[in-house]
């Protein structure tokens, strides 16, 4: 359990984290989302006692970080891929950390095997790929077999097999009753991993809800229907007080209803359905919707600067009429 109470961090006049209060509960994977500059890293660093809060507190299982006698046994963290000495072997890097918290040396070999670095334990991280560095960081986080784990962008640099492994690792750790707090920019990855979400923007809490609830609240959801008897179905639904819209390819779309409701209505009339499915937006779409106002710096905006600028005149190419290319969801509205 991680508890934040009124956590605030100012750098000069800039408020990076602004009265943040939330709890990260054990037993589930909690995703931590926010645009760049939202204060995610600062928050995670304060959780680990690396940054001092300007005001407010963070408690790990009820204690301040500095009160933890051997913190690696309580909380493990993957903060940045490179937080190891490049000239000291992977094994010795972990050994230093283990010794400082009186973790038996045997454990170092165990976690290295666990993350798949057993064969390169004696090599220096200097020559590691980004993915290997990431695995080493994960090994460090697991070293003390902690009840609380923080992961900042855990899949950075991993290949699909590694990504899959990390995802299952986090879920399995949560299933053991541990507290798992993961920050990531990869919405599609988060959607597969996290059960609960904490979203911040410009240092403030924007949402603290379950994944399903978050998507539900921040995007349109509807029931999609296919039937060989569309006319009858439509009538039955309208009679049942539901608003029906025509979709592409003879699909019917019903807003504001559950599949149960629609299934019961159709069933009562004996109408055959070839599809009855709930359609929800992706986490990405919901996230974009929610943080639209809180993004600190945009790649490009407005119609003037389409992603592909006009070719240089010297190249003799006509400027292609760069049409506004808004985010996908805005088109689908």
């Amino acid at each position: 359990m991680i508890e934040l109470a009124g956590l605030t961090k100012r750098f000069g006049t800039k408020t990076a984290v602004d009265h943040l209060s939330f709890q990260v509960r054990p037993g589930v994977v909690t995703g931590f989302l926010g645009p760049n500059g939202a204060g995610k890293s600062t928050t995670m660093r304060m959780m680990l006692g690396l940054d001092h809060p300007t005001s407010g507190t963070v408690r790990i299982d009820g204690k301040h970080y500095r009160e933890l006698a051997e913190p690696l046994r309580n909380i493990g963290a993957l903060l940045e891929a490179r937080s190891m000495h490049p000239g000291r072997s992977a094994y010795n890097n972990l050994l230093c950390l283990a010794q400082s918290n009186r973790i038996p040396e045997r454990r170092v070999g165990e976690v290295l095997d666990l993350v798949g670095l057993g064969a390169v334990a004696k090599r220096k991280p200097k020559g590691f790929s980004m993915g290997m560095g990431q695995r080493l960081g994960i090994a460090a986080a697991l070293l003390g077999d902690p009840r609380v784990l923080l992961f900042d962008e855990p899949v950075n640099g991993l290949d699909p097999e590694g990504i899959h492994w990390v995802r299952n690792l986090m879920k399995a750790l949560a299933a053991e009753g541990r507290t798992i707090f993961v920050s990531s920019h990869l919405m599609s990855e988060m959607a597969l991993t996290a059960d609960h979400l904490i979203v911040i923007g410009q240092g403030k809490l924007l949402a603290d809800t379950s994944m399903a609830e978050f998507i539900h609240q921040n995007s349109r959801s509807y029931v999609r229907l296919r039937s060989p008897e569309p006319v009858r179905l439509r009538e039955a639904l309208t009679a049942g007080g539901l608003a029906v819209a025509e979709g592409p390819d003879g699909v019917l779309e019903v807003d504001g209803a559950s599949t149960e409701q629609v299934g019961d209505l159709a069933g009562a009339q004996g109408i055959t359905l070839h599809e009855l499915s709930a359609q929800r937006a992706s986490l990405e779409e919901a996230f974009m919707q929610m943080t639209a106002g809180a993004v600190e710096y945009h790649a490009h905006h407005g119609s003037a600067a389409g992603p592909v600028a006009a070719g240089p005149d010297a190249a003799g190419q006509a400027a292609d009429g760069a049409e506004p290319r808004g985010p996908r969801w805005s088109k689908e509205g």
Partner: protein
Amino acid sequence: MASATAVLRSEWTKIRTVSSTVWTLASALLVTVGVSAGLCALSNATFDDLPEPERLTFDPVLISFAGLTLGQLAMVVFGVLVVGTEYSSGMIRSSLAAVPRRASFLFSKIAVAGALAFVVGLATSFLSFFLGQALLGEHSTSIGEENVLRAVVGGGLYMGLIALFSMGVTAMLRSTVLSLGILVPFFFLVSQILAAVPKAKEVARYFPDQAGSKILQTVPNAMNSDPAPYGPWAGLGIMVLWVAAALLGGYLVLNKRDA
């Protein structure tokens, strides 16, 4: 709190598992001993060509530490790297997450690295002394003479303190490059040059290296150096004050600043 011995063990592992420890300390020893030996041999051969005042105040002990001016730079590099690579590698975040009490972290590191530097310093100064005396022939002295043992042990202390001072400064600056960029020119150039400039040397003699190296002299105003307003132990005391200030500053910065 994390037990002190556990943190000390961890810091010892950190030091012994990087190659920079070996090459910095080895160069400190080899450079000091080598250069000293060379100068001793040279002095012995050309003793009669030395100017009169230098011949009168000839200090066979001090001359056998002549390589220290250069060798101490390796000690500076050692001290800087011990603390600086924590920052340059990002290891500092892992370290402080493991040992959140920053005093415990910093002073364990400094204790381990300082002890190691002192041991290597002592070995260096004894080697330097005996080899130097062997090469000085008739101008040599022996360890039993007055003040000689003090000077030789002092040489070891001096090297240890130089390393500690560098660690403190690096903890304040939080950067390997910056610390090396300041400390190496300071000890190798600035301090030496200022010490030779009339007015400036009044100040320069209170610099850590100038004050600390007083302990290496066994003859008053050895090698025709300027008389200092403090004795050998007082000089070393001045250096200790510098070191204490640097370490305190380093601790305050580490404690105050975000990692």
